[in-house]
C-alpha cells in the first residue's frame, strides 16, 4: 500500500504544483489543513511561499502547530519542508518576530549584499549544490544538477543537519536532514527532473517509519 502523503495547506503558496509533480512520479497526495488528516498521514509536506510571520500565524490559527509537533517529534513521521516550509523549521527568522517551529537548531537570516555589486537579491533562479554530508534526498541526483531557488532569507548554518550547501554572497543551507526531518530551500517541484528525483526519494526512501 502506498504511503499516505499530506501536503499542508496553511494559505501559503501554490500547492497544486507539488501535487502535480507527485502525480508525475506516481505518488498521490492530499492537500489539507485538517488536524485529523495530518494525524492520519504517513508523510507530511510543509510547503510555503510568503513571509515567516504570516506562515507561523496561519499554522497557529489553524491549530496545526501542536499536531505537527506531535507527529514530527513524538511519532517521528517523515516531513519535508520546502522553501518557507524549511525556514519555519528553524528557531526564528530575521524576517519576523514569531518563533519558528524550532525543530532544527538554526536561524534564518537575510542575504547581505556586502558591497558585491553584481549580486542579486532575491536569490532567484537555478543554482548547484555542494554536498557536505551523506544525503538520502539527493541519492541518485547528479552532483552538478541545478535546482530552482526563489528566496531572500536562508539558514547559513544548521550544524550536522545541513547536508548540502549552496552559495549566494555567503554559503547557506540548501538541504536539511535530521532523522525524520527533511527540507530543501529550493523548490523541488519547480526543479525539473532533479527536483522530481528529490521528491521521489522523499516519497520512497526517506527514513522514519514507513
Amino acid at each position, binding site marked *: 500500500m502506498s504511503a499516505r502523503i499530506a501536503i499542508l495547506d496553511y494559505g501559503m503558496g*501554490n500547492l*497544486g*504544483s507539488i501535487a*502535480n*509533480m507527485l502525480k*508525475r512520479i506516481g505518488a498521490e497526495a492530499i492537500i489539507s489543513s485538517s488536524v485529523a488528516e495530518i494525524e492520519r498521514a504517513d508523510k507530511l509536506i510543509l510547503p510555503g*511561499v*510568503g*513571509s515567516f510571520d504570516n506562515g507561523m500565524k496561519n499554522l497557529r490559527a489553524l491549530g496545526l502547530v501542536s499536531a505537527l509537533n506531535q507527529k514530527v517529534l513524538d511519532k517521528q513521521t517523515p516531513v519535508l519542508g520546502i522553501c518557507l516550509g524549511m525556514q519555519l523549521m528553524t528557531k526564528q527568522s530575521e524576517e519576523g518576530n514569531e518563533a519558528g517551529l524550532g525543530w532544527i537548531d538554526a536561524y534564518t537570516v537575510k542575504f547581505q*549584499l556586502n558591497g558585491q555589486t*553584481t*549580486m*542579486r*537579491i*532575491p*536569490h*532567484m*533562479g*537555478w*543554482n*548547484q549544490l*555542494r554536498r557536505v554530508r551523506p544525503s538520502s534526498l539527493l541519492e541518485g541526483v547528479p552532483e552538478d544538477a*541545478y535546482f*530552482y531557488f*526563489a*528566496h*531572500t532569507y536562508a539558514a547559513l548554518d544548521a550544524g550536522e543537519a545541513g547536508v548540502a550547501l*549552496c*552559495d*549566494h554572497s555567503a554559503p547557506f543551507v540548501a538541504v536539511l536532514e535530521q532523522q525524520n526531518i527533511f527540507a530543501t530551500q529550493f*523548490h523541488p*517541484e*519547480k*526543479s*525539473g*527532473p532533479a*527536483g*522530481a528525483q528529490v521528491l521521489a526519494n522523499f516519497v520512497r526512501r526517506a527514513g522514519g517509519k514507513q
Partner: protein
Amino acid sequence: MSLAHRIIPCLDTDGERVVKGVQFVNLRDAGDPAALAARYNIEGADELVVLDIAASRDHRPTFLETIRRVAAELAIPLTAGGGVATVDEGRAILRAGADKLTVNTAAIRNPELLTALAAEFGSQAVVLAIDAKRVDDHWEAFVRGGSVPTGLDAVAWAHQGVECGAGEILVTSMDRDGMRSGFDCALTAAISRVVNVPVIASGGADTPETFLEVFREGRADAALAASIFHDRIQGLGELKRYLGEHSISVRQTG
C-alpha cells in the same frame, strides 16, 4: 558554482491562444499555450512567461484557465501577467498556478501596487515589466501594450519600482521587439546597473551570439524570447550548449 543565466520562452496570448506580432502589432496565431509549454518544459527552458496581451476584463476567466492548463505541463517556474491592477487579480493568477506575476501599466499609474503585491506575496513573486523605447538620448516607458508614452525614464522607473517592492525587472525593448536584430544591451545594462534584483532582457533575440551579448554586455540575468523558439529557428539545447562553451553559466539539460 554560480547562479545560472536563465533562458525564458515567452507565450504572448490573446488569453487563450498564443499570438505573435512585430513591434506589438500585426498579431497572428502561433499555437496552443499548453502544447508549447509541454514542449519547452522538456527541451530545457528555465522558466516560462505567459502574458495576456489583450488583457480585457471579459477574457480574464479564459486566461486563468490558460494558466491552469500551462501550469499542469510544467516542472519549472511559471510567470504570468497582463492587465493586473489589484492584489485580488494578482492572487487569482497565482492561485491558478503561476509562481510570479508581472505588472506593467497599473504599476506606473500606482507604484504602491508593487508595495501591496510584495507585502502580500513576497517580492520574489512580483515582476515589474517595463516596455521601453529609445527617445532622443534616453529610454521612455510606454504602457498599454506599448501604445501610450508615459514621459517616465525607463531606467529611473526600474529603480523606483524596485524601491517599491518589485523583485525582478522584465525589460522589453520596443525598438527591437520581433526584429531579430539583437537585444538592446545598452538599455538592459543601464537598468541592471541601477537595481540589485534580477533583470530579464526581452526584445530582439536572434542568434546564440545575441544571447551571449546580452549576458555579457547587457549584464542580464535572464533572456526572454518568443518567435525564435516557437518557430524552431533556435533550439534551447543548442543555445545553452553554445553559451556554456562561451563560459556563461547555464543549466544544461542533456
